[in-house]
C-alpha cells in the first residue's frame, strides 16, 4: 500500500487563483470592517485565521496528500479531514468578526445566511453533503472528473463551515448555540454521524470504491487495507477533534447558572 504513495506536489492553477481571489475579497471586506471592529488584536487575528484556513486548503489539495488522492483512499480521506476539520473552522473563526453582525449583507444573502446557520439546518446540510459524496457513485464520479472532484471538495468546505458556525459563533450572534446543553447535543450529533460513516468504512468487508483497486500496482487486498486506514483516519482523529471542539466551545455559562451555594 505504501508503495503506491508518490512524493510529489500537484500544482493546480485554477485552485490557486480561486484561493487568491477569496483572500483578496476577504482582505477588502476586512479592511473596511477594521474600523468598525475597533479592536486591532481581534482584527489581526481574524485575518490571520482566515488566511491560515486558505493555506490549509492549498496544502490539503496541492501537497503530496492531495497529489495521491486518486491513488490512495487514505490520502484522499486525510485531504477531506484537513478541509472539514481544520480549514473550515479556521475560515469560520476568521469570518465571524465580519459576519457576526450580518446587517451589511444584501437581503437575500442575509436571509440565506440566517437560514443556513440555524443549528438543525447546519447539521443536516453538513451531514447530507458528507454522506452523499461518500456514496460510491458520487465518489467514483469525483475520482474520474476533475471538475466534479473540485465541487466535492468545495461541498465539504462549505458544508463544514456551516456546521462549525453555530458552535464557534457567540451565543448572541446569528446561529450561535445559546446553551451548553445545546452545544453538547450539537457536538455529539456531528460526531455521531461522521463517526458512523467512518465506522462503516473501517469495518466494511468489501471495497467501496473499485477505482482504488484498479490503480497500477494495487489489488483488491491493498485497496481494502487502504480503505480501513482511510476509515480509521476519519474515525479516530474525528473523535479527538470533536472533543477538542467541546473543550474550546463549551463555555462557562454565566447566563444560565446561579452561584448561591449555601452551606
Amino acid at each position: 500500500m505504501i508503495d503506491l504513495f508518490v512524493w510529489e506536489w500537484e500544482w493546480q492553477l485554477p485552485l490557486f487563483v480561486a484561493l487568491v481571489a477569496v483572500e483578496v475579497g476577504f482582505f477588502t471586506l476586512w479592511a473596511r470592517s477594521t474600523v468598525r471592529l475597533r479592536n486591532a488584536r481581534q482584527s489581526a487575528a481574524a485575518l490571520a485565521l482566515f488566511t491560515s484556513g486558505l493555506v490549509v486548503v492549498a496544502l490539503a489539495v496541492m501537497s503530496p496528500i492531495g497529489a495521491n488522492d486518486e491513488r490512495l483512499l487514505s490520502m484522499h480521506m486525510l485531504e477531506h479531514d484537513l478541509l472539514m476539520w481544520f480549514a473550515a473552522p479556521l475560515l469560520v473563526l476568521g469570518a465571524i468578526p465580519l459576519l457576526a453582525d450580518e446587517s451589511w449583507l444584501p437581503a437575500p444573502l442575509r436571509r440565506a445566511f440566517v437560514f443556513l446557520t440555524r443549528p438543525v439546518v447546519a447539521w443536516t446540510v453538513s451531514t447530507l453533503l458528507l454522506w452523499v459524496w461518500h456514496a460510491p457513485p458520487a465518489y467514483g464520479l469525483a475520482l474520474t472528473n476533475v471538475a466534479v472532484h473540485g465541487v466535492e471538495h468545495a461541498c465539504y468546505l462549505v458544508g463544514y463551515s456551516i456546521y462549525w458556525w453555530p458552535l464557534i459563533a457567540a451565543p448572541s450572534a446569528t446561529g450561535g448555540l445559546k446553551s451548553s446543553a445545546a452545544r453538547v447535543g450539537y457536538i455529539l450529533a456531528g460526531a455521531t454521524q461522521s463517526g458512523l460513516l467512518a465506522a462503516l468504512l473501517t469495518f466494511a468487508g468489501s471495497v467501496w470504491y473499485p477505482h482504488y483497486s484498479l490503480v497500477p500496482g494495487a489489488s483488491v487486498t491493498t485497496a481494502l487495507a487502504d480503505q480501513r486506514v482511510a476509515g480509521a483516519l476519519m474515525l479516530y482523529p474525528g473523535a479527538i477533534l470533536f472533543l477538542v471542539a467541546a473543550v474550546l466551545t463549551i463555555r462557562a455559562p454565566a447566563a444560565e447558572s446561579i452561584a448561591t451555594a449555601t452551606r
Partner: protein
Amino acid sequence: MTAAERPVSAALLSPDRTNGAALRASMAYMIAGLGTVLLMGLLGFLMRLDQAGMLVISPAWFYRIMTLHGSGMIAAVLLAALGGIAAAVSSTTPLSARALWIALVVYMTGNGFVIFATLVGGFGGGWTVLYPLPEHGIVWSLQAALAIYAGYFFVALGLLLFCVHILFAMSRAHGSLAKALAWRFLFSLGRDKRDALPRPVELIAVVIAIDGIAAATAGLIYLVPLFAQASGVVTSVDALFAKNFVLLFGHTMANLSIYITAGLVYAALPVYTGRAWPTTWPVAAAWNLIIPLMLLNYSHHLYADFAQPVGMQLLGEIGSYAVALPSFIVTIVGALALIYRSGMRWTAAPILFALGLWGWVFGGLGALLDATIPVNQVMHNTLWVPAHFHTYFVLGALAFALAYLLSMLDSLSDIAERRGTRAAAWLYGIGGAGFILMFFVSGANSVPRRFAVHLPEWQVYARIAVPFVLLLALSLAWLSWDLATRFGSAWRAARRPGVEP
C-alpha cells in the same frame, strides 16, 4: 407536621439552593444514562428471547449484543448515577458546569465507539482478554478490537475527568480532602467535631471520586499494553495482568454505580421521611472503609485462575465479605430505620428507593455466595452470576437512580406525578423480581452463562422470565413517559440568572 403532610418540593433541590448550570448538566447525565439503559435493556430482552427459544439470533450476533448490552449497561447506569451525585452535591458545593459537560462528551464518545465496534464492527469478545481474544476474533477484525479499546479509553477518561473534578470541588469546599472525608471526626471516634462535617452524600461523593479515579486509572493502564500488542510493539500481554486490571476497571465501575446511587438514598430519603440523616461516626467509618474495600472485591472473579497469588484470592474473599458489612449495617439498616413509622407517603420515588434497598440486599447476598470460594467454583460460570449483578443493577442501582430522578422532578417540576406512576413503580418491582428470580433458579440448576444457544431443558427458565421482562418493560415505559412529561418544567426551573462559581 408529619412527613405525609409536608410538601416534598420544599427541601430536596429547591432552585434557589442549586447551581442551575451544574444541575442542568447533572440532569443531562441522568437522562442520557437512563435513555441508554432503555436501549440496552431492549438488547437484553432480545437475548432472553433467544435463550427461551422464542427468537433465533445467530451466535455471532448474540455475542455482539451481549458485549454491547454488558458494557453499555455498566456505562449507562454509572452515567445516571454520576449525574445523580453531581445534582445532589451541587446544592451545597460549587461545581463547574463546563467540566461536567466536557466529561459527558468524552464519556459519550466512548459509548459511541463501543456501539460502533459491536454493531458495525462485529466485536463480540466481551471482557475476555485471554489470547487470541480480544484482537483475533474469528468474526471481527483487529479494527473492531481497536475501536472497542478506544471506547473503553474514552469512557475511562470521561470517568476520570468527572471524578477528579468532584474530588477537587469537594476538597476546596471543605478546606481539604481530610476534612471532606471527616477524618478528624473519624479518627477521634466521633469526639472531635471542630470541622464542619460533610453531609453523607458529600462524603460519599468523595469516596466514589477516589475509587472512580482508581478504576479509571486501572482501565487506562490496562489499555496501554493492548494497544501496544495491536500495533505489534509487543508480541503478547501477560494474561494475569490484563485480567486483574480489566476487572479492577470494569468490576469497580459496576460497584461504583450501586455505591453512588446508595449515596442518593442519603440525599433524598430524609426529604420523604421528614427525618434527618446526619453524618454520624458509623456513617463516616463505613464510607471511609469502602474506599479500600471496593477496590479489593473484584478478585473474586479470578478464583479459577490458578496463577493468581493465593493472597489475592483470600483478599478477594475477605474484601467481598467486608464490603458488605458497612453497606448493610449502616446504609440499609439506617434507611430502614429512617422509613420505620415515619408516616412517609409512598409515592413512586420512595417505592423505588425501598425496592432498591431490597435489590441491594438480595444482589449482595448473591454476590457473597459467589465470592465464597467453594461455591464460586461450582456457580461462577452459571447464570447465578448474571442473577446477582442484575439484582443489584435492576432492583438496586437503577431503581435508586430512577427514584432520585423522580424525586428531583418532585422538587423542581410544577407538574405533579401521574396517578399511574405509583403503580408503575410497584410493577417495576414485580417484573424485575420475576425476571431476576429466573436467573437465580437457572444458576442454581447449573445453566451456564455466556452460552448463545440453550438446550431445550434450559429454555423453560427463560420462558418463565419473558412475561416478567414484559412487565418490567411496561413499567419502564410508563415511568419514562412520566419523566418525559415533567422533565421540561424541571429543566426550566433549574435555570436561574447569575454567574458560575
